[in-house]
């Protein structure tokens, strides 16, 4: 499959120029170490705020006219912890990755800065500080995305990312300055004190604008298109940071501004969030399930998961205003837990994809395969991540998706038509997302890591160095916690939930213990117990299958049946494209693939086929329908303005004369 959106990089093309730079051993240690250390600081600070007193810091002289104001509360603390934890794993991983991929000095130097920017966002206590750290984070990430700028795909992804992120920033900027002007203050605390004075028009404006801006950062539809590009082309540790930590900031913004500061909004806010979330989730996972580029698949999976989280946030608003604060608390817990577990498994997935990329130079699943034997640890790591992403039991995403479903099915049935329609459809959307998510992850793991290598590069793959494996192991450990012992996060989430007015503070959230119990509604789950029981059951089955072993001849190896050919060639295998073909056909109307089949006949006869060329392009339909017209309109206006500047000095003076006439007429 050729896609117009990416070129599969090959080994020599990667960092060709970076090779010219001196080996970056010491610098890699410094940069990775600093990144991890910053992450550790973030975790420590976050935890201290969650379980201790809020902290504040004001620096008036820093940043001209603006100043810096940091205010940490449990909500910010939670995001500090998430970002920090991701950074620790990525920092350690980056030490090995940077050396192996020979990173240039500049990206190494700004990697810690990126983490710092991300840690500042949730710590910001005023809209100006928030905006500064937001844009700092965006700018640094842009430069990181561009680190392999010698490749054309990276440059175009970088430009695309820059523009979309700036668009998002502009809309957040507008929303927040309007908010602060209307509330008469810059600090979040001031705003929240005066929020009752705001007109509903202002609130609506702020809500819509922030939704656009934060949604774009979180990769939600329809402003998601930067995500599959930037996350794909960035160096993998950066992809991990972006996909597991940076997109969370979009969610943070929605929670902080729209849920907390603007208070529980009207019903339609919740509904809007749910619709956008559901669309993003389904669209993202659909694209992921037909993607053949490993990192692109993971990037679309990010859109999917952010969609699920947004859906839950919307459900929380809707449930709260329908008089079910306990269920709203479940939805909110589900959102936060899913955010954290997504951070864990997506970090791991991108890091594993990074070690594949480093080992083979390939991201194209159609050329990978057979890594399980060559890179066993990486394969296991990716397996853990994929299990988490597919939301199956034993996976990191299971518990949060379970909570999500519980919140959706326990809406109060008091004749509320909105709820009666929204909730089942949401369950359907979540279910379809999970189902397709499983398909996407099975494809990524099964085609990418199992079976036989589909190219020489994959054949020659070697396991990643120790530091990369260490980073991945940390992330895997986090995944394990989410999978079997989410109870460890119970106290943290409870503290955070208490500061969110959407829940009302008094409604008890779900109890995360060995058994997850949902107060007020029936429902319980024990992921730990389930895991243990499953392991016992599998062992039991293995034991039972020993029955009759005494009578068996000695075990043997045998070649597979090659469908009549001499040996099984890797070209006979299903590829990622063929694997996803049934899904692509089922969702033909949504995906709109562009398929060309070209048959070349021999000159001698019409009936003898010399070769068949098959080309299938999968572009992003949202992009084609929405972005292209906008770009075309901008270009048309620009051309029109250009046409008005012919270079004729007479025309130019005529403009001036017109201006003069207008002034004369207006001022008299």
């Amino acid at each position, binding site marked *: 499959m050729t896609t117009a959106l990416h070129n599969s990089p090959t080994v020599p093309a990667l960092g060709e120029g970076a090779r010219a730079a001196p080996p970056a051993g010491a610098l890699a240690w410094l940069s990775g170490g600093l990144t991890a250390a910053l992450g550790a600081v973030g975790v420590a600070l976050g935890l201290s705020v969650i379980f201790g007193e809020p902290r504040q810091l004001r620096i008036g002289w820093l940043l001209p006219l603006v100043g810096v104001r940091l205010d940490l509360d449990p909500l910010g603390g939670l995001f500090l912890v998430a970002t920090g934890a991701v950074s620790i794993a990525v920092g350690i991983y980056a030490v090995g990755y940077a050396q192996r991929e020979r990173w240039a000095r500049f990206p190494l130097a700004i990697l810690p800065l990126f983490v710092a920017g991300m840690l500042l966002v949730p710590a910001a206590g005023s809209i100006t500080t928030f905006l500064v750290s937001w844009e700092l984070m965006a700018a640094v990430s842009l430069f990181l995305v561009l680190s392999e700028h010698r490749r054309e795909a990276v440059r175009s992804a970088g430009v695309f990312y820059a523009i979309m992120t700036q668009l998002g920033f502009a809309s957040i900027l507008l929303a927040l300055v309007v908010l602060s002007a209307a509330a008469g203050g810059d600090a979040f605390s001031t705003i929240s004190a005066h929020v009752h004075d705001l007109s509903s028009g202002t609130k609506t404006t702020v809500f819509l604008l922030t939704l656009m801006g934060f949604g774009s950062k979180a990769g939600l539809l329809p402003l998601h298109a930067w995500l599959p590009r930037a996350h794909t082309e960035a160096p993998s540790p950066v992809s991990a940071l972006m996909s597991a930590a940076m997109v969370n900031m979009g969610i943070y913004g929605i929670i902080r501004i729209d849920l907390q500061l603007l208070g529980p909004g009207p019903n339609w806010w919740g509904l809007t969030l749910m619709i956008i979330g559901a669309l993003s989730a389904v669209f993202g996972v659909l694209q992921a399930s037909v993607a053949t580029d490993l990192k692109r698949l993971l990037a679309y999976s990010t859109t999917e998961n952010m969609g699920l989280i947004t859906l839950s946030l919307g459900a929380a608003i809707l449930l709260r205003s329908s008089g079910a604060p306990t269920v709203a608390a479940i939805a909110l817990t589900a959102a936060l837990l899913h955010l954290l577990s997504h951070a864990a498994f997506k970090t791991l997935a991108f890091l594993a994809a990074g070690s594949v990329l480093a080992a083979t130079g390939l991201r194209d699943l159609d050329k990978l395969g057979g890594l399980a034997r060559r890179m066993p640890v990486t394969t296991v790591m990716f397996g853990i991540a994929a299990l988490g992403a597919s939301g199956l039991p034993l996976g990191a995403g299971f518990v949060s998706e379970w909570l999500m*479903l519980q919140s959706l099915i326990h809406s109060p049935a008091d004749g509320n038509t909105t709820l009666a329609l929204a909730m089942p459809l949401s369950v359907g959307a979540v279910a379809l997302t999970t189902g397709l998510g499983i398909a996407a992850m099975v494809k990524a793991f099964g085609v990418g890591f199992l079976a036989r290598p589909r190219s020489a590069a994959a054949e020659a793959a070697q396991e990643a160095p120790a530091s990369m494996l260490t980073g991945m192991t940390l992330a895997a450990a986090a995944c394990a916690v989410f999978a079997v012992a989410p109870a460890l996060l119970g106290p943290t989430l409870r503290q955070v939930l208490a500061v969110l007015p959407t829940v009302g503070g008094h409604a008890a959230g779900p109890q995360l213990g060995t058994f997850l119990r949902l107060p007020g509604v*029936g429902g319980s789950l024990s992921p730990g117990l389930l895991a243990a029981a499953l392991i016992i*059951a599998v062992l039991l089955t*293995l034991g039972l299958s020993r029955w*009759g072993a005494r009578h068996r001849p000695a*075990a043997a190896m045998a070649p597979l049946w090659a*469908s009549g050919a001499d040996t099984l060639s890797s070209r006979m295998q299903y590829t990622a494209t063929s694997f996803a073909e049934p899904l692509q056909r089922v969702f033909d109307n949504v995906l709109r693939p562009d398929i060309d089949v070209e048959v070349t006949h021999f000159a001698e006869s019409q009936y003898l086929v010399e070769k068949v060329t098959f080309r299938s392009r999968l572009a992003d339909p949202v992009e084609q329908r929405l972005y292209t017209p906008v770009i075309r309109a901008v270009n048309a206006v620009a051309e029109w303005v250009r046409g008005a500047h012919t270079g004729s000095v007479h025309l130019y003076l005529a403009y001036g004369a017109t201006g003069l006439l207008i002034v004369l007429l207006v001022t008299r």
Partner: protein
Amino acid sequence: MAAALQVVAVLAGAPLVMGGMRQVRARLEGRAGGGIGQPYRDLRKLLRKQQITPQGTTVVFALAPAVAAGSTLLIAAIVPLIALGSPLDSAADLFGVVGLLFLGTVALTLAALDTGTAFGGMGSSREITIAALVEPTILLAVFALSIPAHSANLAAIVSAAMQNPGQVFSPGSVLAFVALVIVTLAETGRLPVDNPSTHLEVTMIHPAMVLEYAGPKLAVVEWASGMRLTVLLALLANLFLPWGVAATDPSALGVLLGLAAITVKVAVLASVLAAGEVFIAKLRLFRVPELLAGSFLLALLAVTASSFLATTTQ
């Protein structure tokens, strides 16, 4: 205690269900059939064969049958087949059960991909497509079932149905039942979604996936798919017709009654299923989504009907 019995019953009864269904089909098609006990003989034969590992496969291929079978066994331990109050009941609700079911599917799918053959890939690609499309229907049906009980925990659903038997015939319940039947067929690879007895590679789904298994591993695979069918049929029966299910901490008599009840229910359902299969042909693969879309609609209607009904009764 009852849970252990459930596991044992499913373990032992699964081949019987398979054998019974094949026999019913054979008779209806005018064949003599291999007899109800044939699956047992097949399993014994397979378990004594040589263990052959295909070259180039990994531990995924080796472990997948055990995972598939193990997850089904676990389901058997959780769901109230004979009696309520399994010790694992609060460890997983219906969503958890669905998750376990998928875990088994995914394990086999990965194993099929692991072989690196064209058939393996084909089978797993189709299996996963269908699984993905089935998921919304299942979860919505779960939703519909959980509305009367205000819980998705199985014991709660079953006991709610026992206390309020009239609800079984409510429109929501009936719609949910039909939807669940369709997904059960899809999940267990029965007609019209898949043909369990086909040998034409191009049309197969599940058989194509397990094509490379032989000997003891094939035995486990076959056994697992039998158990899957059995558990799902039993679950289906008890969710909608919970009569005879023993209460928590049952007496020996209660357990026996429960066992008898579930045996009868599964036997009836399996026979009906087998009889039905005689009269329908397999759907083309790309017509399957239509069937599943239909079942999704049914499930959606079930939920909305239930929630509106719940409103009017209150």
